[in-house]
């Protein structure tokens, strides 16, 4: 019993720490990338929430999917996601990540992001305003604190399902087979 309590306390502390330093992988995947500079810079200043850009996947905690993903990008995004270290979170940004958005009949974009990657928070809008982006991060922080942001665990558990979906649209899967 005592051990569990100790682990629990450790979790709370580490989640508190994680929540306050969300490093975002700077990958402008879709057109939503245009609202990221305003969010990060002086007017909206997301850094006061501990949100900061990070160039490499290895050091990043959050993968921000800024809008639609073309099949070609999806491949790279999966690769970036696999390189990130757990715990890692995915934010789906804009209506095109939810149900196709305005690219619903495009032959080259995926429609439901959560079929391919475990999304922790969806932000609605086309474009979402910087306030909405920050709101999404705040939501993610809450989820982390309450231990509900466990998309990465979901991904590990249902890897076969995710992988099958991914392989369905990516025809030439010439990536290393990341093995959880």
């Amino acid at each position, binding site marked *: 019993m005592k051990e569990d309590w100790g682990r629990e306390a450790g979790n709370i502390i580490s989640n508190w720490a994680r929540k306050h330093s969300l490093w975002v992988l700077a990958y402008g995947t879709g057109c939503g990338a245009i609202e990221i500079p305003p969010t990060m810079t002086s007017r909206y200043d997301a850094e006061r929430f501990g949100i900061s850009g990070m160039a490499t996947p290895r050091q990043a905690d959050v993968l921000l999917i800024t809008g639609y993903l073309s099949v070609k990008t999806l491949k790279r995004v999966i690769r970036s996601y696999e390189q990130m270290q757990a715990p890692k979170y995915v934010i789906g940004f804009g*209506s095109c990540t*939810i*149900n196709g958005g*305005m690219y619903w009949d495009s032959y080259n974009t995926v429609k439901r992001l959560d079929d391919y990657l475990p999304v922790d928070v*969806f932000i609605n809008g086309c474009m979402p305003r910087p306030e909405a982006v920050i709101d*999404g991060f705040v939501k993610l922080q809450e989820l982390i604190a309450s231990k509900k942001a466990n998309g990465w665990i979901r991904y590990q558990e249902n890897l076969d399902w995710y992988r099958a979906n991914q392989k369905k649209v990516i025809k030439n899967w010439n990536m290393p087979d990341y093995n959880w």
Partner: protein
Amino acid sequence: MKNIKGVFLPFSALKFLGKKPHTVRYPLEKKKTAERYRGFHYNDIEECIGCGTCATICQNEAIDMIKIDGIEPKKGDSGLRPRVDNGRCCWCGLCVEMCPTGSLSLTDQYLQTTPDPESFLLIPGVDHPEYGEHKSFVKDDEIRLLDLQRVPMRELDGAERVKSFAEVVLGYMQEEARREASRCVDCAICVTACPDHMHIPEYIAAIADADDELALKYIYDNNPLPELCGKVCTRQCETVCAISHLGDPIAIRWLKRYATEQFPDPAVILNPKIAEPNGKKVGIVGGGPAGLSAGFYLALRGFDVTVYEALPKAGGMTFAGIPKYRFPEDSLDKQISYMEKIGVKIKTNTRIGKDISFEELEKRHDALFLGVGFHVPYRLGIIGEDLKNSIQAVDFLREINLGNKVDVGDKVVVIGGGNVAIDAARVARRLGAEVTILYRRRVEDMPADWEEIEGAEHEGVKIVPQGIPLEIIGKDGKVAAIKYGMAEMVPDPKGGRPRPKLIEGDEHTMEVTSVIGAIGQEADYSFLPERIKEKLEIERGRIKVNEYKQTTIDYIFAGGDTVNRTMDAISAIADGVKAVEGIERFLLGDKNK
């Protein structure tokens, strides 16, 4: 040297460290969005009519029309309401610009962040009714995508009109019709109001698409008298038209008229397939719209149909009661000759009970359809009604339409406010008389079409509202003057529309040469034998029928004014069409069973 300066210049930025930041304080303080911000949707559920135009224009197919508890479909309302998939929407606001009622708007709400991807369906107005307080992007009064103005109809000038019985409305030219038809948003709300449920959006779309033949096919699918409807219909469709909520309704009637006028002989275009004769015979009493429609579709389905008409020409009230400047005789001839081509036998000048007995009819036919209409006028019930030149509007119009001369003198008063009254007044005006209409209620209470009232006024007909006739004063056995009292409107204690009440002492006398009564008609069932009359359920002059227009006697069907209260041609046609189904079921059995 320049470079040295360039090394130190950036440090001047340090002075901004002391300045107040312009950071938006969040989450403590949310930046106020602009007045026109396009955020989530809000829909005024009460104002929305479920036309689905928003769903049609949405390029993301983000809007679904769905059934919502508590909202029932009714006339002018499909009963559906939009639901927005926020996982599709791009908040372009085209739906708001296109909304014909102006019920849809965008709000200044934009925050929705959730881990649940299934929660992005929003029924505007039902979910988050508080958004109603946050309306932001609304329809502009000036800038619209929908054309709210009707293409004007060319008409004869008032002074020109009174000289002859030439048709007043001239009809759309091809280009005008295309323009008018292309205003339509194809929502089909009009179908809910049409008694006959014509395929209105389809034929309007065909006209807009420059395919008049297709339009005609759609029109004749369930209306064999479209030229009549194109000219004199009461057009309930236009009263509920989606566009009418903010602008002029689509001129559905004129477009139908346009389509039918394009083809001198509909048979050539439609080339209908007539079913093999099935040996069943149907007799139709009364050649009005109800009888003719029933006859038309029965003949198409292989029945042997005979129409018995008392007057020298078929058409019923549309022939005898509608003046020629509204519905010219050759239009009627065209429709009737098409019917005869299909195989409908029309026996004119045949009055049941006089030229042929009812028993004979029963013997000749397997089923009968009664569409005798209301031709007996109500009496005014005042002194002097039996004087010479005190006549009834239906008789007056019939005589004129039959080509007989009626001398009304030069000063006529018409009593009543319905379409018949206006018709009588305008006909009398064409005979050269000065005409006054005397009506007990206000002008806005008149049951006549506003267009007709306007037309009459345009032609110089004077309307005296709130005037109640008291006595017709005669001289030498002829009408000489009419005494009438003015009335005030008092609220009805039972909650009905306000009633006129005579003002004591406010009486006037007007010198007139003729008085035309037009306060309504009733049916004449004297041709029916007593045994039939006993079995039929007749309630306040109307025969009771079931859904398929079948009376309590199974082989007798009825339709038109004889059974329904709306007293217009399109309801009569609808009855006729419906009765065809009933007769087919009765004689051939229910195929669907």
